[in-house]
């Protein structure tokens, strides 16, 4: 078990909470709309090869929200600012769900954000056939039920979801949900102009999806692949929206092979 430290970095007029651990080349990990669950098992495994940076997005966790961060494009601007300041440009990155959308927005803005990038169950592109599940109109418990294809195969279930949340955790989750709704309300969880803008991307991109994703339809993997020239897709069978949590070993294997 590698130790992660929790740091506070002042960026763009606000404090950013960052978990950092491991050694080796930097790897930036961007969490999804549900918030930063901290360095879970998958992050520990990746930290054996890389120095993992796992920030809480502005407005999430203990991170401040600079008042100008109102949209996903603002958030992407914030992170390119963070990268420049911290010397973390041209690094490897993984974006989960809404964090995958964030990584894609960054890719569409600059050619030197990432050296290699993995998009996992990424929001950001409107599916043709299905719909991205509206996570705001249902309860957090209903969202949780949709995230996992088979809860019994989630190795960290007890640690992550086994106990009732404390009042502080409830408040935190509420705050995280408010930040998500601020960023992604309309158009919901996608940017109609994103696929066209991804035409500029030339860095190696790996698109990874759980076959049974109930939140962002797996067809979006193909749409990302069409938008990003030379990208490759892996679909993990019997797995829901968060392969890194539901099948961490399969996820880490795929991640290390690519990164």
């Amino acid at each position, binding site marked *: 078990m590698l130790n992660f430290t929790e740091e506070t970095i002042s960026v763009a007029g606000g404090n950013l909470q960052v978990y950092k651990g491991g050694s080796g080349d930097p790897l930036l990990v961007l969490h999804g709309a549900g918030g930063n669950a901290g360095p879970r098992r998958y992050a520990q495994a990746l930290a054996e090869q890389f120095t993992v940076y796992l920030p809480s997005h502005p407005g999430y966790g203990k991170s401040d929200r600079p008042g100008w961060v109102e949209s996903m494009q603002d958030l992407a601007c914030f992170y390119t600012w963070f990268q420049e300041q911290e010397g973390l440009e041209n690094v490897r990155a993984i974006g989960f769900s809404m964090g995958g959308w964030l990584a894609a927005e960054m890719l569409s803005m600059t050619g030197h954000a990432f050296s290699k990038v993995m998009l996992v169950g990424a929001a950001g592109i409107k599916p043709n056939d299905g719909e991205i599940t509206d996570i*705001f*109109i*249902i*309860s957090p418990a209903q969202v949780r039920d949709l995230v996992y294809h088979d809860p019994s195969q989630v190795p960290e279930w007890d640690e992550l979801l086994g106990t009732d949340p404390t009042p502080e955790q409830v*408040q935190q989750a*509420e705050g995280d*949900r*408010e930040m*998500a*709704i*601020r960023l992604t*309300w*309309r158009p919901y969880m996608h940017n109609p102009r994103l696929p066209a803008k991804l035409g500029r991307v030339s860095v190696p991109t790996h698109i990874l999806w759980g076959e049974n994703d109930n939140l962002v339809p797996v067809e979006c993997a193909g749409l990302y692949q069409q938008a990003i020239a030379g990208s490759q897709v892996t679909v993990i069978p019997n797995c829901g929206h968060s392969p890194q949590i539901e099948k961490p070993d399969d996820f880490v294997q795929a991640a290390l092979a690519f990164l």
Partner: protein
Amino acid sequence: MDVFYFTEMPYAEFPESEAEKFPSMRLTFPNTYFDPKTASGLMNRYLDEYQYAEEMGFDGLMINEHHNTPSCMDVEVNITGGILARITNRAKILMLGNMLPTSDNPVRLAEEIALLDVISGGRIISGFVRGIGIESWANNTNPIHNRERFEECHDLVVKTWTTPGPFRWEGNHYHYRAVNPWMLPVQKPHPPVWVPGTGSPETVEWTARHRYTYAAFLTPLEVAKNLFARYREYAAADGWEPGPEKFAFMICAHVNDTDEKAQESGKAFLWRMNYPLRGPREYWSPPGYTSRAGAAAVAARRPTPLHEMTYRELQDRYHLVVGSPETVIRKLRHIRDELGVGSLLLEAQGGQLSHSDTMRSIELFGKEVIPALKD
């Protein structure tokens, strides 16, 4: 004391238990249950009842607006307000109100209200509301911006009414090159503004700061008292003392010839207290819609939700006043004296209350109840 007549113009013409099949009777309850021909009859009936309410002596007519719900067919107060402006000639027309946060065009809104004031000869009371959470969904307006859009939309509407055009507006949510509508209100500096509330401390403070009338909606008397007391504190801190005209209270009220008859016919109001008030928390209060302080206040406002109260409890707690003229006079006087309000907003048609029971109730209010509340 001004007494207003109000109905939400409900559509109760289907088995209410159908609502059990869906998360709520609002927002996602399928509109396949809607029959336009039935609605046509109902809407015209409700407008006739408003006309009769004026004729019988109500001081004002109140209308409101909701979306995606059979509990309220009025989807645009500026349309029904326009009809009332033309088919009545004396009563105040209280629109409570226009939903500011979901409006994408405050200048158009200012024009519409001004037009109503012109047609009605200056009888418009312009209510401004945040809209319940469901309206954020129905209009797809980000709930996180609800309060800031409310405030900016208000500022722009009032400026449009009071500042000679043309002027430019470059705000956070609204942007205009040439605000200069030809149509302006009759009432100067502008029509009175009222704001409803059910508990949000921010709303009370904002309303007091602007010296507008605050209307407590279906709250327990104790809660209304506390909200009004907070208003008075803010006003005192600001160096002025609000009169009764700054306070209004909305409840359901039904009168019939005797207590027995009224208790029977008044049961029709249970429809509006039941399924239309149920639904998932996310429908009523999407993330970001309510501040943490507001959420705490709303949680405290009613010990029991209205839809969990019996007919008796609704009456005991003054959410619904039912009885003979004598009983209703006694109860409404009690509310008036307890709260010190200048206006009572009576939802006198509610739920499944029939046309004949509504007309009889309006008649008794006009002939017996309202005169007795004026002393």
